């Protein structure tokens, strides 16, 4: 049965064009699906179990989508709620939804799909040989799993279908693959499986597959032989090039995409312009395989304190590398003498902004910067130790001379205090998949009525 999916944007919190959304709703979609997250911004969101987007931005956009849902009379689903899709951010999104339901006078059944995994669950699976490393995978053990603050499994289409089957008007899903919320309904209705996953991949970043990426809103029509994609903003055109090029984006392999239960192969996909706005895609293939779900996990890798100084003197800017090498050696010795800390029990890393700040040892250009920013990053086992090291090195970062026979320099500190305690540093600690005998084995579903 043909299925029309409305995708308001690539992620909730980044904005979409309201007129384009209204146009999408007027096209009578069968479901509205939006992504709520990704690992794009790093491990903090998953580690801390927090959304990276402001609650106000999320609420304002979700309000528009809840109104669009009421008008369209179809389910509204968000995947990877609250950036990381941990249970805590699913509940955060649920609170926003309940608050909006009251404000809008809507009475709703809300399904929550939880994706968090306990260390015990994953440890048991590890013992049963059901955890398979991807490349490159960090080493894992029961101890490292127990040290993770959050572990999530990426749900696929089956878990979203189970949520849809509850009859809920709104589905707030924890971690899912980027494509699962879009592919779920077309697959459930028997549309072409390769097309369902391929169309979902094309649409998951919203209008990024069109000539006006920031306009957000996309409509995809799925059927038994392929899919058709159209952007809703008047100036956003989907062309065979803009659509097919999207398979390159954030994919290591532009032809193969692994999902729970198999993989998508678009090697033989054909992209045809139906008119100036719409592209038809056929020939994508779904290859069924084992039912595995990808795991993501994060843990605390230490606590950080940073310090920033700016070298403006021409002599120091020109010799920043030599200066920082000497300074680092001196500080390592000072920290050892005064705090009794061995160099391997903490790290002190200086980044030279204006020299090689972004690329480090890979940088192959040299120049003559007007000034050099020196960003010192201390990572230690506790915030107390990191802060203490920060205070200890502070006067030397301010005054350390390049040579012994010169007057004591004073560099620029941009603020007081010069050190900033950053809190926990989280790190991604899993790049594995978990084999499941039943798709719902690792996921939980609850339905709650909210509103007036």
């Amino acid at each position, binding site marked *: 049965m043909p299925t029309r999916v409305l995708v308001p944007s690539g992620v909730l919190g980044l904005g979409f064009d309201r007129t384009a959304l209204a146009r999408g709703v007027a096209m009578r979609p069968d479901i509205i699906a939006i992504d709520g997250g990704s690992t794009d911004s790093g491990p903090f969101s998953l580690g801390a179990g927090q959304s990276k987007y402001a609650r106000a931005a999320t609420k304002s956009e979700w309000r528009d989508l809840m109104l669009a849902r009421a008008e369209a009379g179809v389910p509204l689903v968000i995947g990877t709620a609250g950036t990381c899709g941990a249970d805590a951010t699913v509940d955060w999104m649920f609170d926003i939804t309940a608050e909006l339901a009251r404000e809008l006078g809507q009475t709703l059944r809300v399904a929550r799909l939880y994706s968090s995994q306990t260390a015990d669950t994953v440890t048991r699976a590890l013992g049963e040989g059901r955890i398979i490393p991807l490349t490159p995978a960090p080493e894992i053990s029961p101890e490292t799993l127990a040290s993770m603050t959050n572990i999530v499994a990426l749900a696929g289409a089956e878990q979203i279908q189970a949520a849809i089957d509850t009859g809920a008007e709104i589905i707030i899903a924890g971690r899912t693959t980027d494509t699962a919320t879009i592919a779920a309904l077309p697959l459930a209705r028997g549309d072409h499986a390769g097309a369902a996953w391929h169309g979902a991949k094309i649409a998951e970043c919203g209008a990024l597959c069109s000539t006006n990426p920031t306009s957000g809103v996309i409509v995809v029509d799925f059927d038994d032989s392929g899919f058709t994609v159209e952007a809703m903003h008047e100036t956003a055109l989907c062309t065979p090039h803009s659509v097919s090029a999207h398979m390159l984006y*954030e994919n*290591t392999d532009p032809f193969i995409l692994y999902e729970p239960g198999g993989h998508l192969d678009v090697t033989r996909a054909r992209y045809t312009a139906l008119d100036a706005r719409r592209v038809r895609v056929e020939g994508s293939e779904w290859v069924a395989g084992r039912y595995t779900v990808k795991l993501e996990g994060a843990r605390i890798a230490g606590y950080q304190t940073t310090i920033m100084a700016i070298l403006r003197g021409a002599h120091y800017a020109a010799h920043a590398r030599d200066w920082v090498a000497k300074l680092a050696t001196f500080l390592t010795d000072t920290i050892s003498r005064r705090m009794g800390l061995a160099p391997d029990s903490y790290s002190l*890393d200086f980044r030279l902004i204006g020299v090689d700040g*972004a690329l480090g040892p890979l940088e192959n250009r040299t120049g003559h910067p007007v000034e050099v920013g020196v960003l010192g990053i201390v990572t230690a086992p506790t915030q107390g130790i990191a802060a203490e090291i920060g205070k200890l090195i502070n006067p030397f970062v301010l005054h350390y001379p390049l040579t012994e026979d010169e007057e004591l320099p004073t560099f620029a500190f941009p603020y007081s205090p010069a050190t900033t305690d950053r809190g926990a540093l989280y790190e*991604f600690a899993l790049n594995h998949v978990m084999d499941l005998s039943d798709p719902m084995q690792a996921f939980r579903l609850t339905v709650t009525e909210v509103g007036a």
Partner: protein
Amino acid sequence: MSTQKQPLGQQVLKVRSKNAGPFWVTIDIFCGTSEAYASVLPRLHTSDVARLYATPEQLVKRFDIPDLHVIKFSIPRPVVQGSAADRDMHGAQWAHLLDEMAV
């Protein structure tokens, strides 16, 4: 035809890079035309790209995509995204090295 080497960025439409998950960076070279693609393709060696990013050549994935006039490289990150030693959370600055590489 000139045999002088030129920065790759001056011969193609765009070079971009981005994380593909926390463990990989992927670099897309949009040549823009089939002529530019055909011209760059034989002169862009995977071994040079591997050296540029200090990565063993056998770990570099390469995709030549004539339909899009695109050459794509995927490289395992030398440091995992967001770890203490990471300098570029989104991996988007990596593209500049390839953009500036003489080809």
